[in-house]
């Protein structure tokens, strides 16, 4: 499969990105390109302009200070994130999530900014142009009147399956977005997502992600991301769960839990967090939190995996990620 025709543009600095995006309608940013290029080959996106942002060295930095916390330029590769010393030590869930994306080749190219910005996916949509073209009916995502996954649904319910967002949510990350006027705004990563499959994030056509910041976790904090996929590499999660727990004197001071690959965005599970916070960590307590997660999630089925299984799986992944986070918290 070949790429469709497009005009190639290059941004030399952050300002360039904004002006290029503003000047050229129907432009896309290509960071690692591991997500957007296959989609272009499949003609899922056929942009007129492609903006290469990878020449901007400023956005490839990992900075860490105890006080300032962690700052990741949006172009830092997933491989670099997963191997960075401060990330491995203090933001373990993020290192684990970055290290489990796709395969080493894709992690060498793929960026953290690209990872949080990917769209939802579906077996009835993420196929070649030839495949989609021949279908007798169109689904919502293609402007049609139905959903093949959830018969009877009134909207698209495609799955958001990125690995790092639940880890970033659990770690309380913030995202710096530069808008079309060049203004920067910093928002909670949770607010970055719409929970709508049709368009999973709030980015406007002229916005781009500059940086991701995470505050240094307080002492006694541990975090963990666990993923189950149908194979060890080159596979999106069937489900993924991240937990970040702060423990003091055996008691849970704070907890944040989030899951991915259940719907139109990464989902924070406050009801499970509440069960932990303020209580002494025991196996029974963790089981209860996992039960709460099980009750809360109403996952979309995968093509070949049932809702029944996914809920069970989320329960196990939440339980195990809390346990491992607690183990690291001491």
């Amino acid at each position: 499969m070949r790429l469709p025709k497009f005009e190639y543009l290059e941004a030399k600095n952050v300002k360039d990105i904004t002006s290029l995006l503003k000047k050229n309608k129907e432009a896309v940013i290509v960071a690692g390109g591991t997500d957007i290029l296959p989609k272009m080959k499949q003609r899922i996106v056929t942009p007129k302009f492609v903006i290469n942002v990878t020449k901007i060295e400023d956005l490839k930095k990992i900075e860490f200070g105890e006080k300032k916390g962690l700052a990741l330029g949006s172009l830092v590769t997933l491989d670099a994130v997963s191997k960075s010393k401060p990330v491995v030590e203090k933001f373990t869930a993020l290192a684990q999530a970055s290290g489990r994306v796709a395969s080493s080749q894709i992690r060498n190219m793929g960026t953290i900014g690209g990872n949080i910005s990917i769209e939802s996916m579906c077996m009835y949509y993420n196929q070649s142009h030839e495949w989609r073209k021949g279908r007798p009916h169109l689904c919502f995502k293609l402007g049609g009147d139905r959903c093949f996954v959830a018969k009877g649904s009134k909207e698209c319910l495609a799955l958001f399956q990125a690995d790092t967002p639940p880890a970033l949510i659990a770690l309380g990350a913030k995202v710096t977005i530069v808008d079309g006027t060049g203004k920067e705004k910093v928002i909670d990563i949770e607010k970055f997502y719409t929970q709508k499959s049709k368009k999973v994030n709030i980015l406007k056509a002229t916005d781009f992600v500059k940086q991701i910041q995470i505050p240094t976790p307080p002492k006694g904090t541990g975090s963990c991301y666990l993923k189950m996929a149908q194979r060890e590499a080159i596979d999106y999660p069937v489900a993924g769960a991240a937990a970040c727990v702060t423990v003091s004197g055996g008691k849970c001071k704070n907890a944040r839990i989030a899951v991915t690959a259940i719907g139109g965005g990464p989902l924070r599970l406050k009801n499970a967090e509440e069960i932990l916070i303020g209580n002494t960590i025991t196996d029974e307590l963790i089981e209860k939190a996992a039960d709460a997660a099980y009750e809360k999630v109403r996952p979309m089925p995968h093509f070949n995996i049932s809702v029944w299984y996914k809920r069970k799986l989320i329960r196990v992944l939440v339980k195990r990620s809390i346990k491992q986070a607690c183990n690291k918290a001491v």
Partner: protein
Amino acid sequence: MGKYSIIGKRQVRTDSAAKVTGSAKFAGDFILPGMLVGKILRSPLPHARILNIDKSKALKLKGVRAVATGKDITDIPHGTMRVDPLPAILRDKYSLAKEKVRFIGDEVAAVAATDEDIAMEALELIKVEYEELPALFDIWEAMKPDAIRIHENFPGNISTMTTFHLGDIEKAFAESDYILEDKYETQRTHHSYLEPHAVTAEYYPSGDVALWSSTQTPFYDKVCIAETIGIPVNKVRVIKPHVGGGFGAKGEVHTLFPISALLSRMSGKPVTISYTREEDISTTTRRHPTIIEQKIGVKKDGRIMAFDSKILADGGAYQSVSMISIFVMGVFQHGPYKLPNFRFDARRFYTNKPYCGAQRGHGAIQPRFVIESMMDIIAENLNLDPIEIRKINALKAGDTTMNNFKIRSCGHIESLDTASEGIGWKKNWKKLPHGKGVGLACNFFASGPGFSQFYTNPPSHSGVNITTEEDGTFLLYTGSSDIGQGSETALAMIAAEEIGLSGIDQLKVIAADTATTPLDLGTYGSRLIVCAGNAAKMAAFKIKEELIETAAEMLEANKEDLEAREGGIYVKGNPEKGITIKQAVKTRFQIKRIPLTTVGYYNPPVDTGDVSGFAEGKVSLAATWSFGCHAAEVDVDEETGVVKVKKVAAAHDCGFAINPPAVEGQIEGCVSMTFGQATCEDYRTEKGWSMTNSFLDYKIPTSEDMPEVQSIIVESIDSEGPFGAKEASEGANIPTIPAIANAVYYATGVRIKDLPITPEKVLRALEKKGGK
């Protein structure tokens, strides 16, 4: 010094340098002056009549040089089931649809254009009018009495049927102490070779056409291409360049071959066609999915009394080689265990889906999963050890099965012993902590089919010519197709050993070019090592004899007293007295002044080609038979159902390992292929739409999933194979799946009877067992 100086030693393959440096050329790598790109328009409907095809708009597009439809080909369908007395209707597919399309992806028209993008655009400009017909998406719909016929000539939509009854199963079951009836299901799997189908064709003003094609069977392709485009067979030349795997899928004459030749003739330019991975997965062949009901009767001590086997297979839209697929699903049940009574009833149905054909371990994988699972259930219920029950029933060398298979060598017992030892059976079986388990299973496979499904009277099954140069180096011409398995290296080793050369660098293999190499039936049925190997050995022997004759004159010795080894010809027992082979060649040329080329050939033993008992399932079928045993260790996460295969100890009886690392590589490749088919691979369609069209969605395992493989070579020294060799590329594909299924059972107490063994199935079974 051992008995041999070349074979049995670890030899670097002749294609290694080309492959590791990236210089190896595959069918899609040829760039010829003025070459066009071909693309195929495919049916978007699962079942429809073609009313009209309007190609006028496409032809007007700048850059389009030819548009072909079913009207541009002859009325001879292609297909490899061609031998007399098979009925002509078994060839049921046209390269380009003539009246009907039968699955989504069926070939309707083809375009050649100066550029891929233009060709794609042109496809969209071809207007096809269809009359949609009811479509049948599963065998239950297909077998309904009022179902539409997908092919007019096949009532009930039964594309293939095999039934036979040997012995007396009613009596045998009556005499059995224990009877087990069980039901299993297997899924569709794709071969997932690295190189999708590809071809480059060049038609010449002389009316000849040459094709570089990714194929296992150039000599079959040649005939089908000639028939489809209506030219004499001798005008078609098929050259097989390097091929990136085939595993049975490329033993079929696929549409792109005749189409590329046709487009080249229509445009007057060379044409190249490479399938996308999506096209490849969704429109070529796949393994047959089956539903198998099996009844096995045994005596108290585990001795098998009878099998009663019923198989339903979903064949998809066309025949492919299903005559063989379905037949061998039955007859392959005659080993590795003695089977005194056997009833077999198998039906394959047409459905409006991508069609199924041969895949590595052809026809053996499905029933073997069933039998080896049931052997363990029976053993447990009779309180027997799984190894003992497999030994007490074992065939042995010298046996002839009740349907006439001649067992010339048999490494079954040794395979069982070495594989089980490799997995630590004694200390691990039923002794590992809950969630962990080991299990094993055996295999049995043909090595060298006795007859061709294609040629009624092939000159021989494999021909090899050897000739020599003035400098004392040799050329070996073989029609056989190395598609990545390393057979060219093995043939070079066999010939070099037989001639008495000091290394394979003194012998060059020229292979698989229908214009210059002698006919070979192709790469399928695990035939190359036995068939082409024997032919190479014979040609080598003959040329050695010629040279020894010359040497005898030079040395003034008796021919009988001379031997050739390590590049020289010596008087036996007197290494001082001898000449080099190079000298012998030179002198031979000087004295005789006639070309020195010898012809070797191989035909399987006459009884193996006797198909008179076909209807009763009594056919000797193969030159010889391979055996083996795999033992697997698994780790099951009982909360998620995830099965991790930790290790497979894989013993394979290849008769004699000509090139041991190649045999080990085949064993590892087999495990990697079938542990994926055991645990995650599942080709899916929905209402005829191919869903799993990429390697993201069709889950072949990655290197990170791969278990440790202990390759164990068992050598039974076969009397028919060259230097005792038998096949090593398919048999080892067969026992991994049941070995894993058995291991999962010992780890968890649950037995999954439909493939693949997914986490969800395991978890459901565990919950059911736990009473949840």
